[in-house]
């Protein structure tokens, strides 16, 4: 056998000019070798962590782990960077069992393997234990249309409650640049003014809340996460959630895909725009609206009444008391309102829970069990 033919100059990596390029970088279409790709991918995430002071030595950090590619790569890379740069943080895997047959069972098995592969402790909290509802039960009761709304609200709380159980107040999630860009567009499309100015925050924490959420993948392209997992042969679960995103979000996702095809930088460009969004200050009363909460106009704004999801009518507290740092009267979770969003949604579900279940005594009074379970969790 003769010596291998030298690599054509035009086929060399655009950064090191010495190794053969094996891929095009989705972010800027640079042709790179595997080594340089690992290097830029990892270094960019490290730079993001440092520039935003996401971690301090001694921090205990929970990784929201779903078994999917984003959170699997997150666990892998945080372990790598923690060791390489001596962050001095303790990493823990935190998984939510939403109770989705077929989807979650398999993905949890992946997380359990990751626990061994990355040598990290694992905590699993389930919707069933927390809320006495599985996602499958919620969908069969409320319909598939609003599944993402329920899941989004419940998962957020579940992660906080799981972290509380572990005595941890910092959860990192695998939200990537594509998710950020999609959020920016969705907030515009939905007219979500409250979130418009916060679309791109890398770190979120309600005032007075002990829980911090951060997104080290804020500037990381989804496609690069896929490529990294592929080349590193990471063990992840690649099936999408059985409950596909609601139709409207789906249209925004399609638009983003089409835009990325004509201009790969558009994901960064949208994030740059989002970072400049700032809602014009306007002295205005905050009137939170929920789908199942209807306002009654009685002419006197200070005594405005509101029907809650559970049908009860409450006098709305004056604005001063309804700011961040208020606790849900039902479960104690931090909320802007009297009752937190999860409790409102759950109360709505309880009202329409099929009689069969109650008769079967499977879940005796879900609401009672919910408050009981939540009391047991310390904050």
């Amino acid at each position, binding site marked *: 056998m003769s010596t291998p033919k030298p690599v054509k100059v035009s086929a060399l990596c655009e950064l090191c000019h010495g190794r053969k390029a094996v891929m095009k970088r989705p972010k800027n279409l640079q042709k790179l070798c595997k080594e340089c790709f690992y290097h830029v991918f990892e270094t960019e995430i490290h730079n993001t962590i440092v520039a935003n002071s996401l971690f301090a030595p001694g921090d205990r950090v929970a990784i929201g782990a779903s078994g999917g590619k984003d959170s699997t790569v997150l666990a892998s890379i945080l372990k790598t960077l923690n060791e390489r740069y001596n962050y001095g943080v303790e990493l823990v895997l935190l998984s939510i069992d939403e109770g989705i047959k077929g989807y979650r069972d398999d993905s949890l098995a992946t997380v359990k393997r990751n626990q061994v592969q990355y040598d990290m402790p694992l905590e699993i909290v389930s919707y069933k234990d927390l809320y006495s509802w599985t996602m499958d039960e919620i969908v069969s009761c409320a319909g598939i249309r609003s599944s993402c709304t329920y899941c989004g609200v419940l998962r957020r709380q579940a992660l906080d409650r799981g972290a509380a159980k572990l005595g941890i107040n910092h959860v990192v999630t695998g939200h990537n640049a594509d998710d950020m860009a999609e959020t920016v567009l969705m907030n515009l499309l939905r007219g979500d003014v409250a979130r418009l100015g916060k679309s791109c925050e890398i770190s979120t924490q309600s005032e007075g809340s002990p829980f911090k959420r951060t997104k080290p993948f804020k500037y990381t392209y989804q496609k690069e996460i896929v490529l990294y997992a592929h080349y590193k042969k990471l063990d992840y679960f690649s099936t999408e959630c059985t409950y596909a995103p609601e139709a409207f979000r789906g*249209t925004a996702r399609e638009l983003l895909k089409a835009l990325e095809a004509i201009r790969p930088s558009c994901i960064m460009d949208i994030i740059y725009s989002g970072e400049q969004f700032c809602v014009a200050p306007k002295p205005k009363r905050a009137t939170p609206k929920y789908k199942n909460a209807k306002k009654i106009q009685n002419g006197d704004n200070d005594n405005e009444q509101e029907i809650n999801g559970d049908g009860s009518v409450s006098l709305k507290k004056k604005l001063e008391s309804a700011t961040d740092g208020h606790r849900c009267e039902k479960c104690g979770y931090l909320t802007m309102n009297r009752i937190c969003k999860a409790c409102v949604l759950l109360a709505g579900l309880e009202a329409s829970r099929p009689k069969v279940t109650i008769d079967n005594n499977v879940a005796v009074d879900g609401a009672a069990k919910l408050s009981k379970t939540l009391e047991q969790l310390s904050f």
Partner: protein
Amino acid sequence: MEGKAVITYYEGFDVVCSRCKTEPATVCARLDSYCTPCFVRFIRGKQRKLMKGEQFKAKHASKQSLGEPQKVLLAFSGGVSSVVLFDVLASNLEEQMANKGTRGQQGFELIVVNLDETIVKSIDKKVRSIIKDLISLYPTVSIQYLILPLHAFVADKSSLAKLSLTSEFGVKLQDIDTAAAAATTFESLLLTVSSKSAVEDLLAVVQSQLLLQTAYQEKCQTLVMGHNTTRLANEIISLTVKGRGGIIHKDIADHKEHFKDTQIEILYPLRGVLQAEIDAYAKLTGLDVHVAKYTEIKSRVNKNLTVNDLSTQYFRTLDLLGYGNTASTVLKSGEKLGEPRGTAISHCRMCGEDIRLPPRTWLNNITTNEGVPLETEEELRNLEAFNREYPSISNGVQDNSAAAGVGVVDVCYGCTLSLQAAKPTLVWPVRHNEKDIINEYVLTDNEEDEV
């Protein structure tokens, strides 16, 4: 409104107009039935409301000599919204002329300006004849018009310079020799831009500059644009996608723009009207025969759609899917935006917009551009081969900019993106930087001491 079309037309005469309660309704919009005259009045009402200020009113004979005459410049592309806005404004003047108290007086002078874009877009009609036809529909009022070629953008040859992007997202400015400047045409300027989205983005900068300049030269205090709700929503999404989200708050608002020594008010009288309603207005009034159809930006390079194309398509799809009210929601979102946080540290030398978050710093913070050191002999041999073939790139990339009389200048994120598509350089009328002028001509205390 989910599942409902924005506009439906009535075929027979069985529904009565819900406004006048006498005439048969021809169209259903916003859940109300209208006869054609009532629908036309409804749409015209939007403009009458926005331009109800004293300055647009016809003055009583006793007050006529007071002050400068109010002049309004209408940006006219020949597209359906601009045709409808022409009709709305001309009818306003016609009513003023017929009014008893101020008989024979127009509240404002109307000047129609068309930026002739035929060198970059194909159009199926002559805009000049469209304007003439439309003016002839209103014989009692006096309306001026002018057609401006895009070449006007490069008329000031002394301001032309060559701009190019460095590998570190910096923008280099190089002088251009007088002969090359003299030979620069608008077409030659766009020839170096290889992406349709970038051409589209630069064109928008050119349009707004030329419109303001025309308003200034014609002494118009007000510039009115035909943008409807859907078009403004499209603008909000497109600006966001093009990294220009920081200017949405003023770009889509009725606002005053500084220009040289004056301020020009920019108004969007049709902001409250959906595209489908504009189409209905043109169809019901028969104005649709005057509407020009543009085809895409001419391009030698590719058949790709542009950012605006995709956004337009998206809103059309949403209409079909029954999310027809999304455009209004997006416009409301955009109207809630204010000035971005932080102070402007400089202005873009290409478009003049404020720069708060320098694109160069931002992009370099999130992009790593260094490779992994080479190890094997084979890799090192490859590098040698590379160096032989591309000596300029391999020489550490650091070009001696300062030595070559090349300056690094501030350019906003959106313009940086468009510049990325210009190879090797883009010739552009560069704006003067106040700071440069101050640095060059103002003597500081130290310098005075030295002297």
